[in-house]
């Protein structure tokens, strides 16, 4: 049974993050907010065991961490933990989830914890995570995709100019060549660019 705890600092918070810097940024933020009962887990071995031993009220985990699915099992195996843990309880929590996911952090709270309390803790985590990550890896992925798209655009441009084709026809030609040669469109596009440069 969840025991009622009134002083704010008695809340037990567990931070699961392999990034030492980010974990301490979050830890500092929570301490500034008056929470002192914080454990940071960096060693992912026997994660469930660590959680059971610490019996936290709130768990934060970075979204780059594949171990997030390990935590998800706790929704199911309630006998593993003393108190049931859920991510959030009702539909109105979608905004909270969205803010957390945007910031790159997953949050789990013990069932029955007062919502206003969860919200202020979560807000702290979200702002600390945002400051740290800024969806860094997504930018990289987007850059990669953009680079490929640029190559295809350039190749289309060359075909349109050199062969008087429409944009659609140029793309269709690249696509057909890719199919026939068992290559990727971006590879074919790259060879069109290379060839054009050689022929200049």
């Amino acid at each position, binding site marked *: 049974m969840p025991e009622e705890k009134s002083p704010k600092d008695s809340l037990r918070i567990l931070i699961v993050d392999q990034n030492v810097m980010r974990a301490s940024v979050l830890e500092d933020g929570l301490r500034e907010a008056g929470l002192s009962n914080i454990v940071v887990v960096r060693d*992912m*071995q*026997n994660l*469930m065991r660590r959680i059971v031993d610490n019996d936290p009220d709130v768990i934060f985990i970075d*979204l*780059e*961490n*594949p*171990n*997030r*699915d*390990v*935590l*998800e*099992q706790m*929704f*199911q*195996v309630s006998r593993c933990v003393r108190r049931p843990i*859920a*991510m*959030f309880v*009702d*539909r109105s*929590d*979608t905004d909270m*989830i*969205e803010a957390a*996911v*945007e910031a790159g952090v*997953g949050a789990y709270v013990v069932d029955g914890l007062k919502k206003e309390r969860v919200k202020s803790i979560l807000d702290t985590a979200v702002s600390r995570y945002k400051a740290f990550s800024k969806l860094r890896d*997504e930018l990289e*992925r987007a850059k*990669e*995709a953009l680079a490929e798209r640029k190559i295809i655009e350039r190749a289309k441009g060359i075909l349109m100019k050199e062969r008087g084709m429409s*944009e*659609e026809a140029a*793309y269709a030609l690249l*696509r057909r060549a*890719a*199919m026939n040669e*068992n290559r*990727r*469109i971006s590879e074919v596009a790259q060879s069109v660019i290379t060839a054009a440069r050689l022929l200049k």
Partner: protein
Amino acid sequence: MTYSNIIVGFIPLLDCAPLVAAVEKGFAAAEGLDLALMRETSWANIRDRLIVGHFDAAHMLGPMAVASSLGIGHLQVPIVAPFSLGLGGNAITVSNELWEQMTAAGARLGADPATQGTALREVVARRERLKQPPLTFAMVYPFSCHNYELRYWLAAAGIHPDRDVRLIVLPPPLLVDALREGQVDGFCVGEPWNSLAVSAGVGRIVVATSAIWRLSPEKVLGFRLDWTQRYPERVSALVRALYRSAQWCENPANHEELARLLAEPRYVGAPADILQRGLSNKVALGPGDHPRDIPDFYVPARHAATFPWRSHAVWFYSQMVRWRQIEFDPQHVALVEATFRPDLYRLALAPLHVELPSEDWKIEGDPASSTGFFDNRIFDPRNLRAYLR
């Protein structure tokens, strides 16, 4: 031509193949889609980012779509699956040490699931007599076919998955090391992870899940219900693109190229030769084992593999009830069935004039078909209560 954007999240596994080929071989572009694939690290992220709208669709565990529609363990957000991302592709692998004990009890490489299960039961019983700690098996997510297939096999062999062994969740990239270090004694996972454990010399594949349930469902393409209502054309276009892409993935002539594509770090990031084994249904079961034919090990398109059978969704629900993830409620059934959407599949493919199944439900283990469970139990979706007893 203007392209409609569509962002799809995926997990680096063999069965993301139709998504990768749809981008790389131009099937998505041919349908007017600018398909962007986003690699994810956990199933929980896939679900959350689909729910909050970062992704328009996702490579999703079939049971996860059902769990989300029912609101088990998380928010209730209706997810719909108008397309199945193939059948099979999973296997159960055990550590070298456990394999030694199992062979002493009668297991043989490549034997049927009943033989392997009987051997495992003997090992489990002996450990209990010797007061040794229970064996630990890992799977990838509570609402996954891996969880249910592993449990099905254990239970059919007389091993209670919650009492006689310990079942934990571990993410696939950690499984091979966990097996090597003795953290787990076995696991059920999708390719390439079983073959990677074999090739690292740390495990033996004891059962391909296609031998537990021939032509069993696995991943689906999941959308938020409201998104499909808002962008019906994009849903149809993506279903058509993936239908063609899955056909291309099925063709053996393309397996080498497909394996090479999947091997890239931005997709699955595993050695191409290992990925190719899974694609071509030729799997090496142990270190030094010559790859053997495993019929229908992974089926991207044949046998109506892309059709989202409503009965598959109902079977997932039956397992959720069986393993007490949810209490049976007759009112759930309509929600469960509405998660898989053969109607959207049919609508999307109508212009292609291809042959489609005439029904939305089927009986698993029907003696007239080649599908079914190794213990010959029959699953009739119209008779769920009887199946649950």
